[in-house]
């Protein structure tokens, strides 16, 4: 199951394919990798598919919108081929259609990669693993964890502020201008409170003997096992396979050059 993979290794296994995939401008490469990601998500992630779709569908609609931009403003380098649509200022050729679909599929791969990570990773474990495996300084790790723990408090404070404004009759103007004003009215007090709290937390940590030294023991000992490396290897080799297959089928296109 993907949720039991070491969080740091999992993060690396997700970042690397995301970067390498950005080389491809053809349809085949991201399509093959996307199918692989779907397979991993369905069979090995243990993620509730309904929940997954709830995140995936709205995000991919958005990806299509961005692909539309690149489809009608395609650079000459990619826009070759026959003209399919020529309407007013919109001109779509087979080349630009290909780029549009490729970029949409790339975004969908990114979304699937993200969800594979976000829906299977516990934030606290990720931080602890980053401290133990990636050697993030303990001071930073616990600082971030403390900040993260404040989040429910922020929500509570936001409610308090809202009520305080209401009781004093501060009007809630509508529209964009009102929204910006409200943003300003809430942001400064929220941040000021957060800063005061962070100072108190730092004092409390120090008074309880936290020195931030790296020579410390861990209550939650997070390890890297063989299956973590296997997960990393499978992600990278799936991507290599996607590149190889689209090369053998003659689709592979890296930055406008067909191979």
């Amino acid at each position, binding site marked *: 199951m993907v949720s039991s993979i070491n969080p740091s290794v999992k*993060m690396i296994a*997700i*970042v690397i394919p*995301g*970067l390498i995939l*950005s080389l491809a*401008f053809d349809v085949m490469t991201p399509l093959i990798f996307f199918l692989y990601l779907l397979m991993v998500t369905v069979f090995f992630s243990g993620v509730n598919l309904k929940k997954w779709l709830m995140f995936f569908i709205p995000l991919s609609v*958005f990806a299509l*919108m*961005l692909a*539309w*931009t*690149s489809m*009608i*403003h*395609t*650079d000459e380098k*990619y826009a070759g081929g026959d003209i399919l649509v020529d309407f007013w200022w919109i001109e779509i050729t087979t080349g630009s259609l290909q*780029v549009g679909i*490729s*970029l949409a599929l*790339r975004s969908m791969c*990114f*979304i699937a*990669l*993200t*969800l594979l*990570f*976000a*829906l299977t990773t516990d*934030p606290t474990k*990720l931080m602890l693993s980053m401290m133990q495996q990636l050697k993030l300084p303990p*001071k*930073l790790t616990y*600082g*971030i964890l*403390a*900040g*993260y723990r*404040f*989040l429910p408090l*922020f929500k509570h404070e936001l409610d308090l502020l809202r009520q305080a404004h209401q009781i004093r009759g501060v009007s809630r103007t509508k529209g964009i201008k009102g929204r910006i004003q409200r943003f300003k009215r809430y942001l*400064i007090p929220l*941040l*000021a*409170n*957060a*800063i*005061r*709290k*962070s*100072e108190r*937390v*730092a*004092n409390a*940590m120090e008074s309880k003997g*936290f020195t*931030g030294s790296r020579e410390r023991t861990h209550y939650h000992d997070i390890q890297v096992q063989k299956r973590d490396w296997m997960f990393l290897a499978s992600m990278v080799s799936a991507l290599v396979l996607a590149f190889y297959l689209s090369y053998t089928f003659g689709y592979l296109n890296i*930055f*406008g050059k067909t191979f």
Partner: protein
Amino acid sequence: MNQWKLKEIVLMSILGVVFGFIYLGFFGVGKILTSIMAPLGLGDLGYEVIYGIWFIVSVIAAYIIRKPGAALMAEMIAALVEVLAGSTTGPSLLISGFIQGLGAELAFALTRWKDYRLRILIFSGVGAALLSFPYHFFTQGYDALEPWVVTLMFSARVISAILITGLLGKFISDQLAKTGALQGYALGKEMKQKKRDDHVA
């Protein structure tokens, strides 16, 4: 990291956490702007006009704490929080956070972390825009776009960095210092000193 006081690190982390969530919120704003501009075929521009918001924690943290690395680390923490909270861009956001933070840190590094006037803060935002654009050019496939669209997007990003990162970033920090919450940090101390000087004069 050894010259840092724990309270400065915790402050930086908290700023990173708060702005990580603000960044996430602005993804929604960017999406609305994108949907408005998408029918015109300028969807990508929706994000560029507000891009400066995603550099802002660098300027705020550096301006308040005034230590080497504040701009870079605060931006990376914000990116990490976005990832933890489940951002749509995913863990590769850590890389863009690193690049943006590096660009923002550059301005302060060039002044040896001694100059925190408005022009340096603006320069810091522009640095983040300059360094981050080539990275997004690569990952978002801007290479497939017509040159004039890419130029337009780049200009929008730089202008947004000047206005939102530089000017708004300084404004928010100054407003915070006025509340008195920053008395234990460099910006609060400077403000106190200034008040005293004004009093004497």
